[in-house]
């Protein structure tokens, strides 16, 4: 293994080098160099994820409020899939944007978001986590609006508003949860939360704060808006890697495994199930492939929410729940990444066989998402069901059936996605760019292989478990349903007429916002923009002033002055006499 003195350096580089290169891309002179090196940087993070010893911590007391970077099992899983996805997306992006004049700016934000993503995974204290979370969130804004279209700006606006709201909720939660301003290590925080007097408030704030990132209902609205407008590699990392930061935040900050919280457990499972079905149902009504994928992400994140809900149920369930969540995250990151990158590749195809190859390739992650046997999806579902065994509240069977039902939906949604793919669309890349194909292929292979590396049980037993009927039937039903729908194509059209605008509940919010804006404009804005606060400096008492001036003239007349003279003498005399 690498000696400890090299270790911190490597970690710094993994986090810092992207930032340095991000700055470099903005410089006229160093831009091309930085661009050339940009896709390689996530490999540093991958290296850390592979070689760093478990449970090692690097303390940086001089940084911020005393930063800690560390490595544990969670970190390792997250770091691996994050780095892998970013690497592929990075190379992909270089090819994808090769003709884009603003690609330097794209890479600046890309690298900054990368740095944030890697940093937050490595962070071992609340403030550092928050720091990198913010870095990632704000940097992604540049990715979302990169195309500069109206839709992109709209998506960006929604995104940034939610980011700010999320940051605010998070920082409020942090204020409440840290036991002291300088005691911010995770080890201290999570136990403090369980004992905190305002625990429920903290949990609510944390759930909502990270829920925005994790696409939790109803805070998911930015996802379906942002993914279609962002450049494809950006969508891949947004949906594959960054969305998982929300999950990681939950794992790090929620008092899961610290006690029994049946209320929150029920809430999370309910919310997760709702998301799982809601995402599918709305996704089916979409006409854009990337939007459909976005809704799929919402749906899939619902499963991870369920895992968190299991963790809330009891400390006993948590180890199984967290490993299920990690596996699910890993699987979903790679699969969703491959699907997104595939969307771009499909736009590249020039002839039939290429299309069939791509579709075949895309089938793998699609099936994986649906949880088909032998896929990583099956592994993840298995882990989740294992975790359910520890779940004391509901009858597990009932819940398992619901999960299977959701898998049916996912299958149909994936079919719908494949149907929506538009070969030969617009692209900045030249035809058949290897820069697009190769990263996609690598990711495809990863989807197939990598998850198995993280399965602790003997592979043989696992394989046999995935081959069970319960893994088969949802996919089968889904395929049949999809086939029927395709056969009777008008049904699809029917779905099209039912089309829900992407961003669904956002419509209501938008309406509310515009109502508020009208009120603001008509009532408050003039009030707020005016100068009425200068009340102190305004004095206009012309009437009194005129009277004063007139009286001053009267005082100057001898008779009046004399009267006053005598009067005052009298008053004074009177005070002597009577005083």
């Amino acid at each position, binding site marked *: 293994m690498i000696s400890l003195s090299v270790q911190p350096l490597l970690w710094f580089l993994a986090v810092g080098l992207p930032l340095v290169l991000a700055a470099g891309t903005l410089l006229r002179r160093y831009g091309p160099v930085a661009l050339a090196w940009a896709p390689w940087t996530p490999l540093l993070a991958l290296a850390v994820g592979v070689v760093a010893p478990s449970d090692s911590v690097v303390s940086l007391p001089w940084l911020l409020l005393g930063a800690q970077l560390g490595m544990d099992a969670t970190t390792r899983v997250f770091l691996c899939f994050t780095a892998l996805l970013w690497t592929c997306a990075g190379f992909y992006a270089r090819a994808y944007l090769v003709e884009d004049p603003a690609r330097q700016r794209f890479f600046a934000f890309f690298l900054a978001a990368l740095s944030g993503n890697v940093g937050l995974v490595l962070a071992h204290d609340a403030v550092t986590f928050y720091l990198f979370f913010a870095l990632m969130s704000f940097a992604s804004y540049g990715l979302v609006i990169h195309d500069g279209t109206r839709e992109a700006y709209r998506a960006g606006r929604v995104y940034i508003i939610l980011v700010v709201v999320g940051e605010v909720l998070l920082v409020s939660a942090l204020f409440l949860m840290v036991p002291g301003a300088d005691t911010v290590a995770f080890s201290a925080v999570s136990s403090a939360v369980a004992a905190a007097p305002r625990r429920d408030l903290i949990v609510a704030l944390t759930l909502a704060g990270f829920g925005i990132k994790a696409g939790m209902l109803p805070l998911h609205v930015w996802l379906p808006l942002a993914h279609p407008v962002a450049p494809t590699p950006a969508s891949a990392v947004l949906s594959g890697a960054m969305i998982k930061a929300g999950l990681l935040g939950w794992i790090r900050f929620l008092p899961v495994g610290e006690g029994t919280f049946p209320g929150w457990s029920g809430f999370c499972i309910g919310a997760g199930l709702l998301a799982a079905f809601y995402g599918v149902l709305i996704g089916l009504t979409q006409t854009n492939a990337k939007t459909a994928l976005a809704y799929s992400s919402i749906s899939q994140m619902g499963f991870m929410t369920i895992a968190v809900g299991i963790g809330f149920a009891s400390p006993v369930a948590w180890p199984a729940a967290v490993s299920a969540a990690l596996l699910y995250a890993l699987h979903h990151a790679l699969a969703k990444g491959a699907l997104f990158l595939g969307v771009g590749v499909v736009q590249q195809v020039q002839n039939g066989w290429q299309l069939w190859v791509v579709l075949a390739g895309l089938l793998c992650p699609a099936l994986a998402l649906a949880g088909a046997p032998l896929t990583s999806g099956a592994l993840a579902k298995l882990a989740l069901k294992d975790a359910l065994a520890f779940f004391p509240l509901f009858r597990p069977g009932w819940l398992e059936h619901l999960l299977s039902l959701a898998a049916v939906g996912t299958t149909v949604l994936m079919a719908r996605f494949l149907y929506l793919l538009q070969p030969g669309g617009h692209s900045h890349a030249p035809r058949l760019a290897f820069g697009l194909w190769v990263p996609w292929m690598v990711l495809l292979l990863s989807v197939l292989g990598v998850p198995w590396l993280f399965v602790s049980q003997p592979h043989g037993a696992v394989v046999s478990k995935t081959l069970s009927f319960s893994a088969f039937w949802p996919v089968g039903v889904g395929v049949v349903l999809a086939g029927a729908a395709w056969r009777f194509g008008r049904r699809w059209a029917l779905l099209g007429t039912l089309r829900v605008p992407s961003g669904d509940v956002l419509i209501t919010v938008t309406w509310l916002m515009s109502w508020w804006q009208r009120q603001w404009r008509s009532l408050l804005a003039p009030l707020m923009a005016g100068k009425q606060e200068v009340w102190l400096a305004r004095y206009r008492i012309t009437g009194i002033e005129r009277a004063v001036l007139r009286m001053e003239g009267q005082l100057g*007349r*001898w*008779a009046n*002055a*004399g009267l006053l003279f*005598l009067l005052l003498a009298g008053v004074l005399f009177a005070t002597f006499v009577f005083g």
Partner: protein
Amino acid sequence: MNAAVLYTLMGVGLFSIGLHGFLAQPHLLRKVLALNIMGSGVFAVLMATAWRGPQLPPDPVPHALVLTGIVVAVSATAFALALLRRIHTATGRASLPEDTAA
């Protein structure tokens, strides 16, 4: 009631008349004259204090004070009159503007 009191009363009467005239009369010459009447009133009051009965010699101090006062009054009057003439030359009036303008 003795002569001194009578003189005093005459003095305060003169003073009051003078003061009234000074305040009520806009013409500057009248004002100056009124001031002199007021002065005379004060002189009278002061002179009355010198009286110490028919037998005793009068108090010389008030005499001296009045003499000094007269000289001062003369000076002030002369100056005021000269000023009055200049004002009349310059403005064509012999009263102050605040009392002229109704």
